[in-house]
């Protein structure tokens, strides 16, 4: 497959700041999502499912949980002698690039990029939830003879820094690009998945560095729009960008819709994740579950509605959980009541407590907190 000629590069700290509570002790890529996954699983699985065998993961800060999750890359079949998974941390303390500076991040890993033999490079973020067929993207890129192809989505602009919004011709060729324009209209924005020749990226990043750049978006893409053939390729199927705690909550909940699940968990392109070897879900005699996603290792003796439960969550007798996202090993005690709550790993809600947030403002309970 031609995708073998593509190097994957994932930026694991992409927009950490937009869900600062969840990323206080982890990267965006290792934020738990949809029960048993971490956000990076979607991008990484999309890459390997189209035949890419070499993937670099740029880790900037807070990446212990990311390394724990990725390990040797085995669940994605990236634990190999030839190619495989490369985690790319900063070289020394203070070397980390501040505030999501992509140009600095790319220049820091330029040795890795240059020494790879692949002809193309596909750069991805981790706050985008999708399951894309990158083979299609690659074919589009080569058929239309593009220099750069950027995956886009149509909708309101996510509230993120440096969002690129495109004005395109009918064939997808970019006429102009605006960075975070003020508009309430639906626009075509970049989900920061970008394909180009590796040699072009090396040159563009090199140029940016030598001419005191501002940002990747301005100095690498916007500045070169007129000189290069830049094309947009709309993401097909489910594609959402996390830009806040609220959107994190909403996008999790969207997976309760069977059509979206069928698309995201496409059987042709399975989403892989670290294996935990939990036992299957146990439902007790008094359990009542409705419209929820439940992961392995959960023990349910209470009531769960409209919620997403990660692996190893326990819901005790009489407890009621509604509109919640409960992460790994959360414990909910007898007769506790939760509504619109996001709990982080191993949170403990002691018996008889009542906690509630609102759908528009879910309350977050940190890792290991006991209430």
């Amino acid at each position: 497959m031609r995708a073998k000629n593509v190097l994957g590069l994932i930026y694991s700290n992409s927009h950490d700041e937009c869900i600062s509570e969840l990323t206080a002790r982890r990267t965006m890529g290792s934020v738990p999502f949809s029960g048993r996954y971490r956000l990076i699983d979607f991008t990484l699985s999309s890459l390997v499912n189209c035949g890419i065998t070499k993937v670099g993961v740029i880790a900037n800060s807070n990446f212990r949980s990311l390394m724990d999750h990725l390990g040797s890359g085995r669940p994605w079949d990236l634990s190999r002698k030839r190619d495989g998974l490369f985690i790319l941390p900063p070289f020394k303390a203070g070397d980390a690039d501040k505030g999501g500076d992509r140009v600095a991040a790319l220049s820091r890993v330029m040795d890795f990029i240059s020494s790879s033999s692949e002809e193309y490079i596909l750069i991805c973020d981790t706050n985008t939830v999708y399951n894309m067929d990158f083979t299609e993207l690659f074919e589009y890129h080569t058929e239309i003879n593009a220099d750069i192809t950027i995956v886009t989505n149509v909708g309101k602009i996510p509230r993120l820094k440096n969002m690129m919004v495109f004005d395109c011709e009918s064939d997808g060729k970019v006429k102009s690009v605006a960075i975070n324009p003020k508009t309430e209209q639906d626009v075509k924005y970049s989900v920061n998945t970008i394909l180009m020749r590796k040699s072009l990226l090396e040159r563009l990043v090199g140029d940016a560095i030598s001419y005191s750049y501002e940002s990747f978006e301005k100095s690498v893409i916007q500045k070169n729009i007129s000189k290069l053939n830049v094309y947009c390729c709309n993401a097909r199927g489910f594609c959402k960008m996390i830009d806040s705690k609220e959107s994190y909550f909403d996008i999790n909940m969207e997976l309760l819709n069977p059509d979206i699940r069928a698309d995201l968990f496409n059987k042709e392109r399975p989403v892989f994740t670290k294996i935990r070897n939990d036992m299957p879900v146990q439902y007790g005699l008094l359990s009542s579950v409705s419209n929820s996603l439940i992961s392995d290792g959960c023990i349910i003796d209470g009531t769960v509605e409209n919620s997403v439960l990660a692996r190893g969550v326990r819901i005790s007798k009489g407890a009621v959980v509604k509109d919640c996202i409960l992460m790994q090993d959360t414990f909910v005690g007898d007769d506790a009541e939760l509504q619109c709550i996001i709990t982080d790993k191993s949170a403990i809600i002691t018996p008889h407590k009542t906690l509630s947030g609102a759908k528009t403002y879910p309350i977050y309970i940190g890792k290991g907190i006991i209430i």
Partner: protein
Amino acid sequence: MPKKTECIAMLLAGGQGSRLGVLTNNIAKPAVPYGGKYRIIDFTLSNCVNSGIYTVGILTQYQPLELNNYIGNGQPWDLDRSQGGVHILSPYQQIKGTEWYKGTANAIYQNINFIERYSPKYVAVLSGDHIYKMNYAKMLQYHKEKDAACTIAMLEVPWEEASRFGLMFTDDDGTITDFEEKPKNPRSNKASMGVYMFTWEKLRQYLIDDEADENSSNDFGKDVIPAMHNAGERMYAYPFSGYWKDVGTIDSLWEANLDLLNPKANIDLSDSSWKIYGRSPASPPQYVSKDAALQNSIVAQGCEIEGSIEYSVLFSDVVVEKGAVVDYSIVMPGSTVKKGAVVQYAIVAENTVIGENSVVGESPQSIGNLDDWGVAVVGNGVKVGKKAKVKAKSMISADVKEGDIV
């Protein structure tokens, strides 16, 4: 040359398991799914690695494709190692001819060369078709303390069931004084679990002698163990307490699955200190819709549940549509129970389709004579047509047409 290993395990997984009927038409018994996400062999393999035994030979003979494929390089059990690891040992051609494994003892005998590569002091001989959690390291410790030639794990079973087992008689210090194979009137309730620890030097000699004996049936229980006993070797019973089940029959497989739903059965799979490992499918979390009702059941990932489930075990990627009912049943991976269908007191194998408004299995209460009742079994890939009926005790391996009663 592999380095010297103190103890290695030889896992007998060659049996056909003919009493499991259609469930083992295409797969060996140890590869039969159990408990929502496991295969029977996962228990013995996980026991090995949890006990620190990282060199395991798996003896296969009957329909090994699925089992070999499942074991693969042993990675799910951490048995993909540069020293030791898991090895599939099938019968092979030798200069003096080709021989199938004639019996359990012959299977080990044919692999003496494999065992000798590791120069072990001790060899554990295990069955691949039992459900139990056991620390073989403690058994080995006991074996060493007693300076035994052979130690056999022993479980006290209820007296009324004792006649189904190979029984042992022991001294106060655990020395085995006598054996009795499935007696009509049991005088002991100490059953052999089919878990053996041998001092290799001794076992090796007995295997060679057994092979030379033309009258031998080359079986551990029938030949080698009695020979060792008759020769006055030091043989001890290692007392085990806890859950143990031989899942050799449809009824025992069904019961062993439902035991997971019984808190009194003492089989806890959520214990993180003794995990049972297995190969996991890449399926998303299970979805339970607003129309679903789930009571006292175990459901694996990838399932989509819109019907009503009680006292049942559902494996990965099972779909239960609206209005469908699954009671007291085992449904294996990838099967679909269509709208309005009823599955009760049944084992439904992998990738089957249970058609709309069909009925599989019958409850014991609905049948007058309990002798006519039994678990219904639907074999791999079978399609049960709309409004068809599969009676109690039926075992089907071919599709059932719309409206038929079998």
